[in-house]
């Protein structure tokens, strides 16, 4: 069971940030929950397409992290109020209108943290 209720985790997602890139898609996050560490990315799922950690990049505080490089020994500091961009590459996943997004990450204290959000995309 998640330690933090879903509605609170959802607040991390910045609504309207879903963007199509040349070879992928990006979303923005803002930590409004409290200071913390991200100790891993399990996957990102957009609609029916799952992105493995190797295809996930997190850019925050001017540093780029590949999903597979983030671990308990090498966590990403994600401070209160800090923003970050998550970039998924290698697969088409967007659809016109509402898109379902699931980001599953790890935190050293809370374990699995699953963020579920909906966001719209218009080409």
């Amino acid at each position: 069971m998640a330690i933090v209720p879903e509605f609170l985790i959802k607040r991390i997602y910045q609504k309207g940030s879903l963007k199509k890139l040349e070879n992928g898609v990006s979303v923005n996050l803002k930590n409004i929950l409290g200071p913390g560490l991200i100790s891993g990315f399990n996957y990102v799922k957009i609609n029916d397409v799952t992105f493995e950690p190797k295809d996930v990049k997190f850019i925050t505080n001017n540093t780029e992290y590949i999903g597979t490089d983030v671990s308990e020994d090498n966590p990403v500091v994600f401070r209160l109020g800090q923003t970050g961009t998550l970039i998924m590459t290698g697969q088409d996943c967007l659809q016109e209108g509402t898109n379902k997004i699931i980001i599953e990450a790890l935190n050293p204290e809370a374990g699995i943290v699953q963020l579920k959000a909906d966001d719209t995309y218009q080409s």
Partner: protein
Amino acid sequence: MEVTFDKYSLIIDGERMFIKSGAYHYFRTPGERMARDRFQKMKSGGYNAVDIYFNWNYHSPAPDKYDFTGIKDVRKILQAAKDCGLYIIARPGPFINGEVNAGGLPFWLLKDEEVIPRNRIGTEYKYSPKYMEYIAQWYDQIIPVINEFDNVILFQIENEYATDSMEEDYMRELYKMARERGVKCPIFHNDAYFAGLWADCVDIYALDLYPYINPNQNWKQDNFCFDTLDNVEEIFRGAKEDSPPFIAEMQSGWFDKWDGSGYKHIRDALGDEHINIMTKTALSQGVTLFNHYMTVGGTNWGNLACDEVYTSYEFTAPIDEFGVMQSNFYKAKEINYFVDAFGFTKTEPKDFDFYQENIYAKMRHDLENDCDWLFIRNMNPQETDIQLPFDKQIKLRPYDMKICPINLKLKGCEIEFSDLEIFTRLQNENEDAVFFIADDKANIYIKNGEIISGNKKNFEHLTFKNENKTTQFVFISKQLADKSWVLDNKIIFNADYVLPNGAIALEKNSEIAYFDLKHKFAKKHYVVNELKPTTKKEILKISSVDFCSPEIDVDYDYSNWQKVEDKTDSLSCGMYDEFVWYKAKLPNTLTEITLSARHLFAVYINGKEVLNRNSYKIEKLQDVPETISIPLNKTILKNEINELTVLVQNLGFDKGFSGDTNNPRGLVHFETTPQIPIKFYVNEKLSIERDKKWESENPYLTKITTNFDVDIKDNVFFGKYISFEDFNCRRATIFLNGIKIGRYIKRTHVQDKFYLINEFLKPHNKLEVVVWEKDRNIKSKWGFKSDIKNVKILIGTFKQYQLFK
């Protein structure tokens, strides 16, 4: 007592009050005498309130049954707090967390299938009328007792609660239930997510803050952990504009777990700097109500612990499990005395244009003292020079934080600025004496241009006069400040501690100094003559070794045990004790049994141990289930019908913060190959607790008995322990005069000293240690019997003080 509030502070009988509270668990520090001791120490450290969880489970063994007698008499606890001059923050749950078994919910409640504990499954809200009915029963019991005490200033409903959809029905109903039962004071909830949750359902919004929850974390390096605290005023104002900022649980320590690194590690990691930063930063954010969680450490005796925590709940609290003040107590005392000296109940944030890397700075204007306070913190790992924008430079030690007065008017002078910290102030109409903690790197700047260096010896003093008014500055070292105690506008120096009734506690002969404005300084010599030397631990002489698990023996009569109807887990069977026994018959046609049990268990077939396992594992706050298969053969199943015994030790139910309180314990799963139905019979407790007939031939559980005497005197305070540092067995349960006071599991390395709880000590004591698992390499019964002869149990005294009245 009338308790109101505005956006600044609580107002008690018309007077603004800064609430400096400390958390204390009466169930973990049992009995009125221990409560009085701890409350007096809190009061002497400048706390003016005690936060008390009321543990429903501790009082209610069965529906409609409540026990408020003996050490469970909460009236005596509340009266002790009142007698010591402490306000009470009452937190009767129904859910409390506190790392207690099932979060404080009664076991019988968890068994009831109509009950959904906390009206939620996971984080999904699900209202349970039956649960609310039982809460009403609990509130009917506890609230009338709380209402008898007019020093109760705040009342909490639920604790750290959230659901996905945040329906308000439950919280609003709890609020209504409390009011209907006569609760008059403001009601609050403690929001663990600092997200403004339930602010509209209560009178005062409150939250908890624990920046350090991972002992592997280096908070000094990861100093971002204070981000929330550094912005907490904004959270309060966003949640509820008209109520005072209240940190209902403010970290002053942290609990250790079975898989933790021990309390010494946590105490060393937190140091004194952490409580200093927490408390002063809270002040810088306008907080006027805080509760140090915990202020008094305790012991998980009996079945108090949830599965995460071991016997000691010392929590690295300012007053430790033994009742001994630790260095973070002295730091808390400094801040509490300082707050008492200046009030701090009505301040506003003030613009302060300043930036320096890793320096936190905040300015507040004090509307009552008409001065400003600069709160400044250094998170650099080295001493740092800080150039302030108003032409003053200060030096701050690494991880230090100071509160500096600006334009502070005293009776005989005005301080323009000081980075020499004020310890306390005594005053009357025309005179005040301000005590500073000497620091050779700090200065006091007087409005007339004079600069006073903080490089001073103990009791050096200066006098300032302004017309007919006088101010005296007195300097004391940090070491002396730790041993200085404010009592009724008087200061007593050089005492280990001083109780509010004036009793002075000393470890050794001492010269005590006194100061008050009328008589100035006086001295008196005290001779300590009641204490015995404590340096050596003694080996307790073993008086008997007995084998005490007849349940394992073949042909043991279990016909009067309860028959298991359906599920074997302990809740389903209504067995709530730590130890649960299972008996069954197995035919010799089986080739394998498969089982899962929480948490430690052993399997015996025909009186012989076939498996002894510690299945306890928690990862990311969740139980990790383990299922084990045991292959069987004709050597094990040597009879046509064979006798199976399973003993399961449940380390506690989930505390209910992130998991469900009713997660199963005991024998959770059992199946055979080939699959056949097995009829189980079940009973709880170790046989020595259950009845007098416990003698046995098998050595798997062995009871070691020792006796020792304790010299109990009214004028001596002591904390005693037994030590298992030279103990050669792997698991043991410890009983002092028949009361379970500890659980030892060698492989965890987290605890080998156990507090001999003063409340349970008598002049002549019996200590029984039931050893369950001996050395891993010893397999034969003879080996077990031989091994036990070499067991060493030590007894020692941690601290002792003579009290002079």
